[in-house]
């Protein structure tokens, strides 16, 4: 697996996949996609990087422990539901906000924050498992 070709183009593939995953995640509300799929794509990219560069190096490049990312995901998903408390409506009632930026309108919403949380959970969990398996036991810091 560790051919020079693979190792050379892996970062490129990973970069493209990561950007694509964010795109898929964000467009999910109106087109095929969403946080779950985006998270899977991002996790696959991390698995590829792990194969190319080794788990240890990938972990260092990530800077944050993947499981911590997953935990953050659960947190913001739950938090996005709590925001509706301020409007006096039940838990997880969605709130929409339309930002006017010059010519375009950017819709922001609590379901979007929720979906980003899903993205982080799926990404973090699967990346953690994949890296732990690739690292073959020497991953502990």
């Amino acid at each position, binding site marked *: 697996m560790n051919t020079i070709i693979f190792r050379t183009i892996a970062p490129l593939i990973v970069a493209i996949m990561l950007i694509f995953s964010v795109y*898929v995640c964000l467009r*999910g*509300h*109106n*087109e*095929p*996609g*969403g*946080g*779950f*799929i985006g998270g*899977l*794509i991002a*996790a*696959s990219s991390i*698995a590829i990087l792990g194969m190319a560069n080794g788990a240890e190096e990938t972990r260092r490049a990530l800077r944050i422990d993947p*499981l911590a990312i*997953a*935990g953050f*995901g*659960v947190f913001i*998903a*739950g938090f996005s*539901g709590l925001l509706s408390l301020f409007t006096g409506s039940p*838990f*997880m009632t*969605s709130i*929409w906000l339309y930002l006017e930026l010059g010519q375009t309108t950017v*819709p922001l*919403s609590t*379901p*979007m924050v*929720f*979906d980003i*949380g*899903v993205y982080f*959970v*799926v990404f*973090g*969990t*699967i990346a*953690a*498992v*994949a890296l*732990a*398996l*690739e690292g*073959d*036991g*020497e*991953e*502990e810091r």
Partner: protein
Amino acid sequence: MGLGMDASIALVAIAPFVAALLAPLVHRLAKPFAGWVLALVPGGIFLFLLTLIEPVVSGGAISARIDWVPAYDLDLSFLVDGLSLTFALTISGIGTLIVLYSGAYLKGHPHLGRFLGFLLAFMGAMLGLVLADGMLALFMFWELTSVTSFLLIGFDHTRQAARRGAIQALVITNIGGMALLVGAIMVHWLTGQWEMSALGDEIRSNGLYGLVLAAFLVAAFTKSAQVPLHFWLPNAMEAPTPVSAFLHSATMVQGGVYLLARTTPWLGGTEAWTLILVCFGGATLLWGALGALRQTDLKQMLAQTTLASLGLSVLLIGLGTEAAIAAMVLYFVAHAFYKAGLFMVVGAIDHEAGTRDITILGGLADRMPLTFIGAALASLAMIGLPLTLGYFAKEEMYLGLLSGQWRDIAVLVVLLAGNGLLAGVAMLVLVRPFLGPVLPTPKLAHEAPIAMLAGPLVLGAASIVAAVSTDWLGHTLLEPGAGAILGEAVTSHLTLAINPASAIFWLSIATWALGYLVYRQAATLRTLLRRFEAALGWTADTVFDAVMFGLIRFSGALTRLLHHGRLEIYLVTVFAGLALALIAPLVALKGYDALLPTAELGNWAAKLSWPQLQPYEWGVIALALIGLSAVLMANNRLMAILALGIQGTSVALIFLLFGAPDLAFTQFMVEVLSVVILALVMTRLRLDERDQRPLEDLARDGTLALVCGVGVSLLLMVVLSGVLDTRLSDLFTATSVPIAHGHNIVNVILVDYRGFDTLGEISVVMAAGIAIMALLRSRAKPAVPQPKPAPRRRRKAAA
């Protein structure tokens, strides 16, 4: 007090818990005076409860309620009537003295603060128990007394005996707690009431009366240590002496007696009630009284007499006559006073002389005169001499049994024997350690500190003062207490006058004479009883041990059976369950009828036709079939994993072609990741390259796979053959854009309509990730130093 009545009464049960939390801090700040400071809490409660006597005596019960779980219509309701006030006053009054006593008894102990905290928490639970009107609150406080009792018995947790006694008490009393919960729920189910004060005749007349009665009796008998569930109480004496004085004589074990008294108005009075209570109570009375004579340890003697007293109380409640109930109320107070006093005296002897063995103590009266006075006051009440509370209790007991019927005579004989034996033990406890020649003790005995003397002296004096002010006693204790149990007005006829013409007088004389005889022949009786026990060979205690070990062995065997550590068997079990879940409903509900061809097929061959598919669609199906056959024919594992990926990808393509892009998208990613992760797992586990299994294993797994596959297919076909209920999908289609602002319905469902489900799911994903990491790490650690594990990996494929 500026609080309303509701809040004040709730505070009686809650304040001790607050004090319990603060106890360690108080101990740290006010070291030698911690007992004095903390005694203010029970003292204050006692004084507050005293102010309630007047309204309760004149106006009957006071009820109070505060919201507990309003959503379920549950209140924390309290009832202060003659019965609960009697108990609450006793608990808080003795509690004050015990907290004082403990401060001196465990002086300098590093965990005194914790001990006092447990003690106060127990007191709160016990006060809550006797004041609660709602049965769920009663259950909660009931269990809290068990838990705090466990903590107190096991306080000296470095000793094995203390730990064992604690666990035994917890197990037995919790069985009762569960029974109480069952009983409470049944009563609620039958009557719709949680409050005991609202119950009338409806339970007694119900067909399920027997079950309700059994549940409540198990609860009461475990808590009040009735034969044959009595054995935990003597073992609970491993606790420090103040605990024995408070919990295991005066208060907690009386919880069962209290429960019986409390339930008498709506559960008692039937034939079964009387028979069971009298029989078990009588047996416990005699067993405990004889057991006390067998012992030479003062504390164990008292523990056994406590059993006897509990049996006596249960017997009296069982009789249920006005005299018996009046006797029970009096006896509860008298017993609490003298038994707590005696335990405190024994603690003082142990503390100052260094031993509790009755055969090597003697002549302590000169060295510990005040302790002796306390012991004398308590013992005389236990013997039941005039001018003590014990006297009245005994008189009342005999009063109701003079009808001359054979049942009354039998009960009378049991009572006489029990009281006589108890009187004998009381004489032993008083005379042996304090009078006679001075014997050398392990420590040079001297008078106990004032905090340890206060208890026995105050309680002994109170017993006499209460007895002398006869009218007051009858009016404030007997009438409201017995009245609350019987549900009708009771008139006291207590009198100090001794009437030699009445039978009761001579029964009292007989009791004392029997007591003296027992006292004289104590050594002979002890030898006899010990020989009898040795001949018996087993006790309830050993049976308990056998049951517990049996339970542990059984659960061990069950665990080994289910958790054998062979992954392949786990998987077979899971998939066999899946196959069953798929096929069984189809067969049971005749779902396959929809799939069977209808009667006239006619020329079926003419109806056969190829589905109208595009060539590339045929290609995808062919790809799936190729992938599938490659899985089956693969001759090594890596090949099989890859082939499975091909097959899955083809399925994803089918999803894509037939209009489910989101599903297809996800399926692609899942296939990619599962190929990668499976391959990694395979290398990680160092599995053999080839999968070599015996033919029968292959046949078993193949059959299961086939059954599962057929099951899923059939299920889908049945689902599709019916009319699809489109109400939900119509709703989603119609509302997705207007109210959820999204065109992708799948995503809108995930993050908006069913967002709460998704939140649960991602939490599960996260938790599963943590579990996987834990498994991987636990495997990784030992793998590093060891060169290579032994070659039995194939069987132990568990990851």
